């Protein structure tokens, strides 16, 4: 049997599994909005762990990371920093977000910020920032899926058709089973992607070099330029190292698909264990990525599109069954992030815009139906964005992360009590200043003075927020006492 037939078949077997899970999840639905959007706030440790890591790692982990090691060398091992930071942020900030979400019934980040800052303007701005920057993420994942299917089928399934098929399937099981379907498919996707990238990297290292240790020795002997900072093209300067660490940890955590996961946990203890242990999965996934990227730089030094190094190595040097299994794993990595983002955007648009401003007071089944229609709309937008551009995956991920990062001052104002709380005007002005500086330092003058645009933008945001808050009206004392009192009790009381 030809390799492309095996690869494509295994991808479709995997897709069949996700559809079945979506159907089963649909039969478990209660018709309750909180069940559809938040898994009934009952997610236990194992399910939550696997959905968080699956959502965090995306097409980027499979394609972008190998390509980055290939091009820029060992500097991409900075990834370990941001994956460990994700754990620490989840431990400290995520558990507080869970506590206030559980106590006051928040379903979205905008719910939380609008309640504390007593402002519908904050709700709308946070919702728009959430949706705007995660739509870029839909584009990244959908493009990754299109590449994977196109490569797996040897070009027989076009990039456009592959993207469309996988977008429709992800949207389909989300519409059928809500967040339950997303979580269940994420469990399969997390396990599959982890096994796939490790097995693939180790088999390639063994076949091409006689094992990982010998691979490293060859890299030391033949490409020492890949093994020091800032790398062959000077990319990993100190400013980029710090900036990527911040943007890809805080920035991704603050995206709605990650924050909403905190609201779904069964307990605060679940979130804290999640924070303490998720870096094990997140960080170790980049170990095989280094083998793929650095090994690939030795055996395929002139690859035109570095992001394709993993599938190219597989098709050239691995058996067909393994290639298929791994490409299905890459599909899983992309789909698990894609479905989470589709769900998060649906939740934000349904809850923060439609339920709040367009048609309040309807029954919950009505909002579930509207949510499903919104998914259809997102599907179309995601597809159009995906086939319309072709930027590097990692650049888009970084832009997305730095965008959501602008919510950080507002979220910290809710979760970390201070003697003088920040104000709605401060938070709104901070987001505005942060986004303006982000645009300037990523697009007009990329990473001025070697410092990542994320650092410039979040610095401007915090500074503006502090100054404006100093001269504007804070939230009412009752609201501050209610929300900060809950945080105090959770962290230091009987939480």
């Amino acid at each position, binding site marked *: 049997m030809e390799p492309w037939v095996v690869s494509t078949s295994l991808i479709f077997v995997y897709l069949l599994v996700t559809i079945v899970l979506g159907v089963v999840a649909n039969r478990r639905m209660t018709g309750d909005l909180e069940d559809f959007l938040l898994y009934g706030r009952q997610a236990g440790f194992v399910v939550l762990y696997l959905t968080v890591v699956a959502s965090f790692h995306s097409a980027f982990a499979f394609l972008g990371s190998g390509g980055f090691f290939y091009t820029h060398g*060992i500097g991409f091992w900075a990834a370990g920093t941001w994956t460990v930071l994700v754990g*620490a942020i989840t431990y400290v900030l995520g558990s507080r977000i869970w506590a206030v979400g559980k106590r006051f019934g928040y379903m979205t980040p905008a719910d939380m910020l609008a309640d504390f800052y007593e402002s519908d303007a904050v709700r709308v701005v946070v919702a728009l920032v959430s949706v705007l920057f995660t739509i870029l993420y839909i584009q990244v994942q959908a493009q990754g899926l299109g590449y994977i299917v196109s490569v797996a089928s040897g070009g027989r399934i076009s990039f456009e058709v592959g993207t469309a098929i996988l977008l429709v399937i992800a949207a389909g099981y989300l519409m059928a089973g809500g967040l339950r379907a997303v979580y269940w498919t994420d469990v399969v996707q997390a396990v599959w992607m982890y096994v796939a990238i490790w097995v693939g990297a180790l088999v390639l290292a063994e076949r091409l070099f006689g094992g990982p240790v010998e691979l490293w020795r060859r890299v030391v002997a033949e490409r020492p330029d890949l*093994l020091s900072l800032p790398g062959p093209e000077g990319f990993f300067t*100190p400013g980029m190292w710090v900036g990527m660490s911040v943007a890809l940890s805080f920035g991704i955590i603050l995206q709605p698909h990650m924050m909403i996961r905190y609201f779904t946990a069964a307990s605060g203890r679940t979130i804290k264990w999640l924070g303490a*242990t998720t870096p094990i999965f997140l960080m170790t996934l980049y170990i095989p990525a280094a083998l793929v990227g650095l090994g690939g730089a030795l055996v395929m030094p002139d690859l035109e599109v570095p992001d394709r190094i993993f599938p190219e190595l597989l098709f050239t040097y691995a058996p067909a069954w393994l290639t298929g299994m791994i490409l299905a794993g890459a599909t899983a990595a992309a789909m698990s992030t894609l479905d989470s983002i589709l769900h998060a955007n649906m939740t934000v648009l349904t809850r923060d815009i439609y339920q709040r401003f367009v048609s309040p007071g309807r029954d919950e089944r009505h909002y579930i139906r509207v949510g499903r229609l919104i998914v259809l709309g997102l599907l179309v937008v995601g597809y159009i964005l995906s086939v319309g551009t072709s930027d590097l995956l990692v650049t888009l991920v970084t832009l997305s992360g730095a965008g959501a990062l602008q919510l950080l001052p507002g979220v910290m104002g809710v979760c970390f009590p201070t003697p003088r709380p920040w104000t709605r005007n401060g938070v709104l002005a901070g987001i505005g200043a942060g986004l303006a500086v982000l645009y300037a330092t990523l697009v007009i003058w990329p990473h001025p003075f070697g410092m990542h645009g994320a650092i410039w933008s979040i610095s401007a945001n915090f500074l503006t927020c502090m100054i404006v808050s100093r001269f504007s009206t804070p939230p009412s004392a009752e609201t501050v006492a209610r929300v900060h009192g809950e945080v*105090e009790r959770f962290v230091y009381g009987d939480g």
Partner: protein
Amino acid sequence: MSQPPPQFRSHYLPRTHAGWVAIVSFAILMAMAQPPIVHTLANRIEPSLWGIPFLYVYLLAVYVLMIGVLIWAMRKGV
């Protein structure tokens, strides 16, 4: 309705010994995984461990220790 906290106390400073140990350890380890240390002292291939370059092994060790601090903090109830 929740009762307001009796008085303001900082949430940025740990309130227990274990909290201080966790936050200081994590901060030191994070500094060891950031510039300028990674771009100067740790930015070398030798000495290698079984042929694996020093920078890679060094960062892996720091990351593992950071995860260890998080798990220790969890077990201590920080």
